[in-house]
């Protein structure tokens, strides 16, 4: 192809692209003047320029330019016709407000959603999911995490017991917390350890608006050289901000769990009243909301797992998922979760 017909091809591409961008009738008129206008239209000018072409190319060039002129005129007409048809012909229009053809979608239970959201936060810090049994030995649930028989710390967990005793001494129970998995994880893994253990736990407790006998927890455990309580605070600060808003503040306050030392509970400033308290229904005027218990893994537990506690330190935390879910959505009664009324569950169907 010769150089002058290249020019025609380029113009064609440019004009058509320009037409696509010309949507209103005013824009189309401007387009017409720009390209096909009698005075300065670029195709009109192209046709005028035949005499400037080398003699041997004039025939071919003229033919191409004329073809372009006809093509553009017909494209303009087509574009205008299309619009007129869509907007003016009643036969072809649809009522866009009619219901769409249903495409079913289900949803995760709000507890699953919250569990996943919590897991996601810690996965981003390098934690990985590990799972342990719900029906657990008394040993793992209590003794191995420093809650011996006849110790009042057992009162912190009312227990549902399985009604069979193995070998006359080993008792099974429904785990009251996910903490026995600190032991199970360390039995099978060497530091560095960063695990999350999600799962159901059980308490021998009468149900009311804030108590359920079946609940969901996530245990977090990190054991390595150099892990400090400041790291625990950092990890939980990140968690609080990602779940409850980026301007959250956290505080630690003193607590006691036999398997950690020091032991703390973490509270966040109320995300409803921003800590101002008053008559806030979410924090009951306290300004702070307790979220979870945590602490530094007790050296005896690290030693029992076969690691040198003067070298390895660790932190552990336990989050109650129902509580987090209730707080983030303002759910007033924990019993809704396991009644599974679709009028309740359906409110959490949007994907986040």
């Amino acid at each position, binding site marked *: 192809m010769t150089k002058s017909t290249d020019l025609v091809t380029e113009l064609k591409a440019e004009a058509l692209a320009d037409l696509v961008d010309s949507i209103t009738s005013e824009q189309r008129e401007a387009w017409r003047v720009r390209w096909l206008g009698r005075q300065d239209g670029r195709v009109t000018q192209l046709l005028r320029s035949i005499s400037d072409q080398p003699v041997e190319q004039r025939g071919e060039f003229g033919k191409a330019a004329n073809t372009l002129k006809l093509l553009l005129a017909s494209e303009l007409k087509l574009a205008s016709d299309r619009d007129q048809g869509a907007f003016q012909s009643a036969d072809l229009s649809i009522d866009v407000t009619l*219901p769409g053809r*249903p495409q*079913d979608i*289900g949803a995760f*239970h709000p*507890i*699953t959603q919250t569990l996943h959201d919590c897991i996601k936060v810690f996965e981003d810090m*390098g934690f*990985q*999911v590990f*799972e342990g*049994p*719900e*029906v657990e*030995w008394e040993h793992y649930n209590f003794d191995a995490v420093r809650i011996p*028989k*006849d*110790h*009042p*710390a057992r009162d912190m967990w009312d227990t*549902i*017991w*399985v*009604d069979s005793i193995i*070998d006359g001494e080993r008792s*099974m129970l429904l785990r009251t917390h996910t903490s026995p998995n600190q032991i199970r994880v360390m039995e099978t*893994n060497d530091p*560095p*350890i960063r695990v999350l253990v999600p799962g*159901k736990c059980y308490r*021998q*407790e009468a*149900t009311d608006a804030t108590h359920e*006998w079946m609940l969901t927890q996530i245990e977090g455990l990190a054991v390595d*050289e*150099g*892990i*400090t*309580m*400041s*790291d625990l*605070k*950092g*990890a939980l600060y990140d968690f609080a901000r990602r779940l409850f808003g980026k301007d959250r503040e956290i*505080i630690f*306050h*003193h*607590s*006691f769990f*036999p398997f950690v*030392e020091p032991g*703390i509970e973490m509270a966040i400033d109320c995300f409803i009243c921003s800590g101002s308290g008053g008559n806030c229904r979410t924090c009951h005027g306290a300004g702070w909301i307790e979220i979870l218990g945590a602490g*530094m893994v007790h*050296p005896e537990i690290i030693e029992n797992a076969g690691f040198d506690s003067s070298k390895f*330190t660790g932190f552990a935390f336990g989050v109650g998922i129902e509580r987090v879910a209730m707080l983030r959505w303002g759910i007033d009664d924990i019993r809704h979760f396991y009644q*599974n*009324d*679709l009028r309740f*569950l359906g409110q959490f*169907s949007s994907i986040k």
Partner: protein
Amino acid sequence: MKISLSWLRDFIDIDGQYEPADLARKITNSIAEVEEIEIIGQEWDTTLITVAEVIAINEHPNADRLQIVTISTNHNESKEVICGDLSIFVGQRVAFAREGAHLVDGRTGEKTVLKARPIRGVESAGMLLSEKELGLSDYHETVLTLPFDASVGVALTEVYGDVIFDLYTWANRADLLGVLGIAREISALVGVSLHIPEVGHVESERAVGDFIDVTIEDSDLCPRYKAAIVEGIIIGSSPEWIKKRLRAHNVRPINNVVDITNYVMLETGQPLHAFDYDSIRGQHIFVRQAEQGEIITTIDGLERELSPDILTVCDKEGPIAIAGVMGSLSSQVNSSTKSILLESANFSPASIRRGSTLLKLRSEASTRFEKGIGPEMANFAQARALYLLETVCNSTAAKGTLDVYPGFVKPKAIILSAYRLEQVLGIKIDSVDVVRILNSLGFDVTIKKELEEFEVVPPYWRTDIEIADDLIEDVIRIYGYENLPTTKLSGTLPAPIVNNLTNLRDNSRVVISGLGFQEILTYTLTSKEDLAKVNDPKDKVRSDPLGVSNPIASQHTWLRTSLRSSLLRTFAANRKHQDQALRLFEIGVEYLPVVDDLPKEQPVLCAVLGGGRRERWMRPGSKNLDFFDAKGALETLLLSQGIKASFSSIISPPLKPGFSAKATAVATGETIAVIGQIEEKTADFFNIDEPIYLLEFWLSKAVDAVHIRPEYMPPPRYPDARHDFAIIVPEHIPSGEVINFVCAHRSGDVGCEAELFDEYRGEGLPAQMKSLGLAVKYRSQNRTLNEKDVLKCRKSLLNRLEKEFGALLRN
């Protein structure tokens, strides 16, 4: 534990420094959790409810049960009020309310405003108030008696107002179950000094040993028993300041002696017990395990049978107290008591807890002992009680105490290094602060190795301190967790935990919910009856679930071996308010019993579906979900996970025969799922009166069949040739087998892929035959197929179909 602010102020000077809420926050942050703040006297108007003194009492002219009481309300004012309390006496300090004061109505218990009005014809300037009228308690028999040193004319709130903190303390901190213990912590926290309460008393000539002997049989169970004897007691009511504090801590005043033992317990955390000395038979105390079947009647009037797991305090004849829990009725201090034996003892925490658990008897004493009280605490508490007995009851203590102390242990020093402190906390804390904090909490600290190490001896009341990290906790909680920075975890990342099962479970949840199923979560404990309805009776494992011995409710007694009944119940419950299709699923575990071991927790996805498919025009019931919706969902689920499965019919109650199938993984040959309609009678049991379908997918059985890394094939280079035809086969031939057969067919380099586009039975076909419409694609990796190739392949395929299934081409 309730803690009175006015009591705390006896030991620490924190007046005016903190609002109650601020102090509560500080206590929660560093000491123990304040669950509630109760303000006593918040509603007492400071100008209308004041302290008055009774100066004269006269008869009411018109009523026997009323008196005209003249009171002095301040230095130069007196008033006359009508009062129904006939026990009132001249000189008594009382709470006086003027017109307009906000009160509780003594009869109705409702809030009211006082109006001055004549009572039986005599004017009354106001009212003398009972505890009930002040909102302190339900007591309305007499007016409140105030301490004699209460200044006349001052607001009642000044002498009787208080703030009560309700504290949740820790299972290893018995010392926090005493006001002094909390005061000590606050003094360390806010940097004020601690005033130790007064002790000291006069002793008589006669030594304690002349009165009593003590024998401890097992020093492990009773490390210390310290006895004192007090003579010359006149039993009576305690002074108001003691009663007020007992009441504020929910302890009922009994008499001066018992009240003092309780007062000292609340103050110091050390339980004390007073025996009526004259009722101790043989003047000898034995601390021993009870004999099987021994009987004691405790002071609450209940007869209790004892066993060797219960520790007792006995005299020569038998038990006179359940050690550390409760005394006996026969040895209790009573109105004719003249002398007492004051017990200040130490018992093994585990033993007390075991005993009180066995007897289902918990007391203020047992909740303290079970947390571990330091044996040294017995000293101060006893001295304090002897001081109060002398001051309040005017009694005399015998000389000395009888101290049997076989369990003495010298306090051990713990080495805390600056290195460890930083290793655990991530920050350096100045050694000056470390020493200051530990000292203020009562620890002895010796600095070693140029500030690199501290040798720390815990105070006798801190039985919870065992290791250096315990000290680190004490340092940081007082130093303030707010001073801890937030840092990021560093160090090596652990090796990845690859868990295909978790992945399969999470992926399946996403897919099935995307298919319109709503996730539910149901209780994992159920009833045996429900389980029997949904399990195949031939399935011995599932028919014999594990039970729990203390269920929340009888319908939650058995660990479910199937999720089916939970799904069916949820379906039925939701059907009441949902008339269209319901699709529900749950991912959980089946608890399958294993002999002598924990049950196998087998993960499963269980789903149910039924009802009218949602249509565009919202006409319910026009088309119901059926077996093929269940199967379609399962097929999509399996496809999404790269699991190839074949389906075959099964007979397995409660699935309806002829309408149920299992899916077998091609890769492993395992049954990984079942689908089918629930039999009508089973559905009916769960109150479901419509066809309902089940989908059950055992994740752990399927996980090995998942194609983690699919075998790659380049896309075909040559186009498929498509040819549709129908064949006639006997009715009993499963179409799935035909399709599998066709897909496996090869003729030379030509392979086939087939899908079913129609199934037809009935008119125009021979009897017991059906027609299957097949859409067959022929494909070669080497060339474009022509008509001749296709016909040749089809011919060989038809020949083989005829041989295998008796199939004929339908014209």
